[in-house]
């Protein structure tokens, strides 16, 4: 290769790079223009834009508010979760001495807050009183009940289930029962509610996409002539599509913003009675909100839905508009 050749090549490479940069800048420029122009058009019709934002905002606020409510309920139930009690039924052969020794042993553990010893005699007495089977029980020649240790785990300790497994493995323990039935019921109920909220959210999100799709369809119709002219002078589909995608984005972002606003307003409205109720129950519970991240997520979600709706409308309707 001669020096002239390589020079020409270098220049060729640099001009094609310059052309690429030029095209990229132009593309970026048009994005900026489209974004600004679409925003100006949305703001030019404040009333209809506000209505669209509110419709989307309400549709998004409903599942978001329910989700916040569930979060709060979960926080409450988490507080109830920790002091769950373990009942250790000791082996029938264990003597009272051995049982007391196990009680002392357990009490020294850092992950256990308290151990209450219920002797088999005391248990029998309590049972005969409460059950009304005193006569029957009296007729037994030996006490069928084992010694019982009621173990309360320390609140800062790890999951109760780990402790449960460890204690159940102790040879002196015949059976370790974790009284969690009510907690399981609550958790199942929470799971059910979560699914209902999810289903509701899915339906409403689909609704938002359709609303936005329709709004963008109307925008496309009203600018039909402009689209024809742009296509006549060589505008690509991407070029024609861009302003409508931005319009969808702005509607969605605005809708997400209004949804966050509505949720915040609802929480503010409920905050005082909830605090008073908590006070009456001697609880330090405070109503949790969406938070900054949650609100931002809602805005981002709105934007994505807006883009999706716009994309659907654009891909369905833009192709049909061609110069005649």
């Amino acid at each position, binding site marked *: 290769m001669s020096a002239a050749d390589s020079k020409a090549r270098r220049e060729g490479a640099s001009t094609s790079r310059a052309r690429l940069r*030029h095209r990229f*800048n132009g593309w970026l*420029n048009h994005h900026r223009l489209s974004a600004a122009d679409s925003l100006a058009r949305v703001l030019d019709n404040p009333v209809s834009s506000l209505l669209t934002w509110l419709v989307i905002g309400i549709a998004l606020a409903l599942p978001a508010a329910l989700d916040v409510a569930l979060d709060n309920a979960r926080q409450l139930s988490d507080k109830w979760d920790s002091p769950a009690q373990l009942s250790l039924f000791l082996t029938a052969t264990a003597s009272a001495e051995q049982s007391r020794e196990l009680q002392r042993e357990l009490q020294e553990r850092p992950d256990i807050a308290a151990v209450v010893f219920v002797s088999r005699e005391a248990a029998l007495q309590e049972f005969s009183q409460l059950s009304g089977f005193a006569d029957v029980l009296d007729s037994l020649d030996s006490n069928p009940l084992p010694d019982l240790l009621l173990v309360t785990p320390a609140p800062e300790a790890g999951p109760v289930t780990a402790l449960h497994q460890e204690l159940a493995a102790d040879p002196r323990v015949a059976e370790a029962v974790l009284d969690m039935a009510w907690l399981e019921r609550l958790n199942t109920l929470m799971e059910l509610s979560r699914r209902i909220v999810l289903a509701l959210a899915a339906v409403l999100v689909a609704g938002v996409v359709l609303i936005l799709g329709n709004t963008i369809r109307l925008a496309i119709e009203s600018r039909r002539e402009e689209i*024809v*002219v742009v296509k*006549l*002078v*060589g*505008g690509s*589909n991407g070029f024609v599509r861009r302003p409508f995608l931005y319009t969808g984005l702005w509607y969605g972002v605005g809708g997400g913003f209004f949804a966050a606003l509505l949720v915040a307003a609802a929480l503010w409205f409920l905050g005082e009675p909830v605090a008073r109720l908590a006070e009456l129950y001697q609880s330090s519970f405070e109503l949790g909100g969406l938070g900054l991240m949650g609100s931002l997520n809602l805005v981002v979600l709105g934007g994505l839905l807006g883009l999706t709706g716009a994309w659907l409308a654009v891909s369905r309707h833009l192709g049909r508009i061609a110069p005649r």
Partner: protein
Amino acid sequence: MITFDRVSKRYAEGHEALSEISVDIRQDELVFLTGHSGAGKSTLLRLIMLIERPSRGQLIVDGQNLAKIRARGVPGHRRNIGVVFQNHQLLFDRSVYHNVALPLVIAGYEQREVGRRVRAALDKVGLLAKERALPITLSGGEQQRVGIARAVVARPRILLADEPTGNLDPALSAEIMQLFEAFNQVGVTVLIASHDLALISRLRHRILTLRDGRLVSNRA
């Protein structure tokens, strides 16, 4: 520059708009296309712009066989051709400046370059003072000149015009034709469809005459 080789266009409903058209237009030419309305003038222009595709025959524009350009390539092809429409096809919600700037914005020029070129084009058609005006406030002749400025602003190699003087009085029409001649003199291939025979026969350029979709005369 533009070569029709036995090109026919038959519409779906069976009407044959063009049949067996063969003609060659050189790069330095300004050619008039005439004939009654419905003779196929517009169809011929639409084939060059790829608004329609030929049913038969081959069409080569600027060295490119149009049959080889797929849907994705159509916008790029149109960017190399300036077009002037009878009804101007201006956007009435934006200023003269923004109308003329449209092809440059589509092609992705930087704003400074856009401004420079738009003003140069408006200067050529004598409308530099009207850049901020809305098209609706302009006269028919002025609107047509905005359309011409938009057609030439991206410096295309080919300029097509469909009845550019259709709604204008003779004096204005002659002025518009002079503009086209000026562009032709700087190397743009110009093809003008017009039924204003009195006007175009006074100008010394080749005239193609269409009748019922056939090329009946091709005289210089």
